[in-house]
């Protein structure tokens, strides 16, 4: 049932091909100033057309071809011209994860647009083929939908590489399909270690060659490094651990739990939340009764919005933290202050967005999309740079432009990204692994819902 009853809004409704749009048009739209922020953040963004306009842009793409002939030849026609190739983009663009997903999407679109404008690939135009990984039924990312999207990508010979997914739950569903189709994906934010772990190759990599690359590090570092932070920096004696039943949340909480115990933190309880349930007061009351000095939550925003509010009512004083799944605008827009105050969160990447080192890029991003980039906008941009560089190296080597050849080129990548030199190990993981700790802290100088200004950089999490 999951997924089958969905009423997808947005990109996948017209099927992947129809949704491909020209990115040079996207950038032009982006230059119109004064667009309300929220509009730019969700839905009506540069490059994302209403369904009715979509058909226009498709006709435009096919030039003088008659509409009927163009329809029949869709996909094939573009290939025959030898000019247009697609980069898949799979993100949960609706539901609980929509906001961070759109910040990621912008980073991808920006990189593709720049490559097209700069003529990075002579004679070739790149298009984003944006597919929504979320369904109404799930209310957030939906692995069943992600698998459907993966099949769509693999079945399209014009798709050379994919960027995404955001969530490891989707990644686990997509990896075996992409692996059999030898189509590489580069994820800017999915952090579950098992997907790239050779011990799980039979499950996630039946095709034999790594196809799951990341421009972030994994929960194998994110969870434990946060446990180090709890033990060494915050010096909490005890902890209660929750997850949200998803692959990402369970893996993160497991990794945290193991390292917390190794660091001498007493784990007083471990429980699991149903992200669609609304009432967690019983669990939080149990945490209060356990006397735990801290709470660690592995999971995403759907559960977190409610958990954060109910923790504020019942256990306002204890140390609370989570992973990158809750480093999300909904922490300040939906959970809101004062409930969000004090929550520690991590990001599986260096902190770059909005820092002086990246000022020029951040400004360009903000000017184009009307919102400020997140750190995963940066990793998404980097992932797209890697993908484009790989396509470039295949064409330079004179090899046929196929997904399998692009995959090989990605494996051998050495690309200067915004976060430094990007090199993958032989499993597809990023060679460097830095985890950054942030804390939500209300800054009255800005609106309470102004996400980028309502959390602060704390430190790089202790590694060992």
């Amino acid at each position: 049932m999951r997924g089958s009853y969905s009423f997808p809004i947005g990109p996948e409704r017209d099927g992947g091909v129809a949704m491909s749009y020209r990115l040079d048009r996207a950038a032009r739209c982006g230059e119109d100033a004064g667009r309300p922020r929220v509009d730019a953040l969700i839905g009506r963004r540069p490059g994302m057309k209403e369904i009715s306009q979509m058909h226009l842009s498709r006709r435009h793409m096919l030039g003088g071809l008659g509409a009927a002939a163009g329809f029949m030849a869709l996909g094939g026609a573009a290939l025959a011209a030898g000019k247009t190739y697609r980069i898949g983009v799979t993100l949960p663009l609706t539901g609980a994860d929509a906001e961070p997903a759109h910040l990621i999407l912008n980073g991808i679109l920006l990189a593709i647009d720049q490559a097209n404008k700069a003529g990075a690939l002579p004679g070739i135009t790149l298009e984003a083929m944006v597919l929504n990984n979320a369904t109404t039924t799930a209310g957030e990312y939906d692995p069943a939908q992600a698998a459907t999207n993966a099949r769509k990508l693999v079945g399209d010979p014009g798709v050379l590489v994919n960027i995404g997914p955001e969530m490891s739950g989707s990644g686990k569903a997509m990896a075996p399909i992409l692996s059999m189709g030898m189509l590489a994906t580069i994820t800017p934010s999915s952090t579950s270690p098992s997907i790239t772990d050779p011990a799980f190759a039979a499950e996630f990599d039946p095709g034999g060659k790594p196809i799951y690359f990341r421009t972030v590090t994994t929960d194998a570092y994110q969870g434990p490094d946060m446990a180090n932070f709890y033990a060494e920096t915050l010096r909490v004696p005890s902890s209660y651990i929750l997850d949200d039943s998803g692959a990402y949340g369970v893996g993160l909480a497991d990794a945290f739990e193991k390292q917390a115990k190794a660091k001498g933190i007493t784990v007083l309880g471990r429980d699991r939340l149903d992200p669609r349930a609304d009432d967690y007061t019983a669990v939080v009351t149990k945490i209060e009764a356990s006397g735990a000095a801290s709470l660690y939550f592995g999971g995403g925003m759907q559960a977190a919005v409610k958990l954060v509010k109910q923790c504020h009512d019942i256990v306002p004083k204890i140390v609370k933290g989570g992973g990158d799944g809750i480093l999300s605008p909904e922490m300040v827009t939906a959970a809101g202050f004062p409930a969000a105050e004090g929550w520690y969160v991590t990001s599986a990447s260096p902190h770059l967005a909005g820092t002086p080192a990246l000022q020029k890029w951040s400004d360009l991003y903000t000017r184009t999309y009307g919102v400020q980039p997140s750190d995963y906008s940066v990793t998404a941009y980097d992932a797209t740079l890697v993908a484009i560089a790989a396509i470039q190296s295949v064409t330079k080597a004179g090899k046929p432009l196929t997904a399998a050849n692009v995959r090989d080129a990605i494996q051998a990548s050495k690309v200067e990204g915004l976060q430094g030199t990007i090199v993958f190990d032989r499993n597809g993981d990023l060679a460097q692994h830095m985890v950054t700790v942030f804390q939500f802290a209300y800054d009255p100088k800005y609106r309470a819902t102004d996400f980028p200004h309502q959390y602060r950089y704390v430190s790089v999490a202790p590694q060992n």
Partner: protein
Amino acid sequence: MSPTHILLQQIVNGLSLGAIYALLALGFTLVYGILELINFAHFSVFVVGAMAGLLVLQAFGLQGQSVILHGAPLVLVLLAALVAAMLACGLLGVLIERYTLRPLRAVTGPMAMITTIGVSYILVNLVLLLTRAQSLNYPDPLPAMTATFGGVTVSGKAVMIWIVAAILMIALDRFVRRTRLGQAMRAVAQDQEAARMMGVDVDRVILVTFFVASALAGAAGMIFGLYYNFADYNIGYTAGLMAFTAAVLGGIGNIPGAMLGGVIIGLIDTLGSQYIAAKWADVIVFSILIGTLVFRPAGLLGALAPNRS
């Protein structure tokens, strides 16, 4: 916290949750009692209720966690929002009945039920589009009042839920038992044909039933938002499923049964989370449901539906 305190605290938590389930369960039971129809659109009417209440509160300038009104004005605004949510949902229920269910009245089989599933999806997706799929920060206009009784904390919001739920349930009970329209409802529930022959306007009774059931869902949606300070397009899913379970547990078609079922499910949910684990709470709830249906097919207070042949 001593074990007794923990138990009492979890009972307090469970009663608040149960009150919301009970209000929602009443709607399932009312409609089922009259039409023998499980109305899945009820899930999404609840969501619409939460959103309608939110709009009214926002229109009065209540946003986020700021407490800007006190005393009588605050009570009046809350009452206005509650009435607006109930009216909006009541009318929505009437529209659903009139335009999607009445044309199917003569059709036997599961068509009407499937229609309600369709209506439910349409409504939820409309809310999804209008809210841009975001979780919303529901206003928390009540001053943070808590009272502690021997270590057990009771919040003002919990007391508000209990009072509103109790008033609505008593009013419903009075309405069904004491008024002419209520009498007509009971007659239609017992035997539609006979009631029609006795001069009862059956179509009107069914419309009124949908109005009342949906208005209760609207009230439940509004107090849900105030209690959890949160709403999104998806809140009807778990709450609706639990409320439906509560209605079946209490004996579907039976009004006191729905109230009892709601409170029991709320208590099982919280006590199960405390003494076993939250991850097992759903398993426990539904196991109890199945056990009840095996050993008491009509539910705790229900009598099996009258034979209409």
